């Protein structure tokens, strides 16, 4: 364990299936990645947390609905309150919505079909813990793989999020956002959102699948490395 590698936990629920990919990805991005089983939450030494994709509890009832009651969520709430970075990808995003750590809800994809493919997203806001390696307006090629990524928030919430800079990513094509580039019908083509403080990010695309040239794209590195750096700086801030 080197000092400059922050400890980032990966919460594992029964039914998580991107946990191994997330652990691998966080290591590549410069973290010590630590598996955290849903009912034995590691306490203390974590600088950040990633909630991976998958089908926690089979995604029965609603995606993320059952997982929100796991013990590890108490730890995650605490970390979010303390200002540590928390990243929820795909099912992780859905869980964060169910717990209320992020605004909005998730519906079935517009076409009712699961979609797995590489899409382009545009970085919409830099005021959060996941964007210090990128500039606003940057586009990234990152895979999505979900059946329920049709993000919904009511108009009032959307307006607030827009004015707070809480919309992190939108689906696009060469930087242009439009109905034809929205894969799942999400409100305003939203692909990821943060909390008001900017330390909790939920996103449908999988940055951990875009870290190595062999897999076709390395555009996820910016997001993951930003998280790693923010973990280091938030640790410094909290420990002062």
């Amino acid at each position: 364990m080197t000092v400059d590698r922050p400890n980032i936990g990966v919460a594992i629920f029964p039914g998580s299936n991107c946990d191994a990919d997330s652990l691998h990805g966080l290591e590549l991005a410069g973290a010590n990645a630590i598996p955290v089983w849903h009912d034995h939450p590691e306490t203390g030494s974590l600088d950040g947390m990633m909630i991976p994709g998958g089908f926690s509890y089979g995604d029965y009832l609603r995606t993320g609905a059952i997982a929100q009651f796991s013990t590890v969520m108490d730890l995650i709430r605490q970390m979010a309150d303390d200002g540590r970075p928390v990243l929820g990808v795909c099912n992780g995003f859905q869980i964060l919505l169910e717990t209320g750590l992020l605004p909005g809800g998730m519906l079935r994809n517009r076409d009712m079909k699961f979609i797995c493919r590489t899409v382009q997203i545009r970085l919409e806001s830099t005021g959060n813990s996941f964007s210090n390696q990128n500039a606003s307006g940057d586009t990234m090629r990152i895979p999505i793989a979900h059946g329920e990524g049709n993000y919904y928030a009511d108009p009032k919430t959307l307006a607030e999020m827009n004015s707070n800079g809480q919309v992190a990513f939108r689906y696009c094509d060469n930087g242009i956002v439009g109905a034809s580039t929205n894969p799942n019908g999400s409100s305003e083509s939203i692909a990821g959102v943060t909390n008001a403080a900017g330390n909790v990010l939920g996103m449908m695309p999988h940055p951990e699948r875009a870290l190595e040239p062999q897999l076709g794209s390395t555009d996820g590195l910016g997001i993951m490395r930003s998280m790693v750096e923010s973990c280091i700086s938030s640790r410094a801030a909290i420990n002062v």
Partner: protein
Amino acid sequence: MNAKVVVSLKDGILDPEGQAVASALGRMGFDEVKDVRIGKVIEIELEDGIADAEVRVKQMCEQILSNPVIEKFHIQTEQS
């Protein structure tokens, strides 16, 4: 004691599943279909003699069976 909970999307939220079914029905010649909305029925079998069953079921609905951001619920209880 049984309780039946119907959970459905709030009015005004587009229902992708309902739309898919509506258009499938249209394609199959059921032209009289104007709209379809789809919800869930959750049938809960409870131990007999629970005093505050209605209250408890309401708590279940609020805590987990529905998500108030997108859904509404409706409870029917029936003595069996």
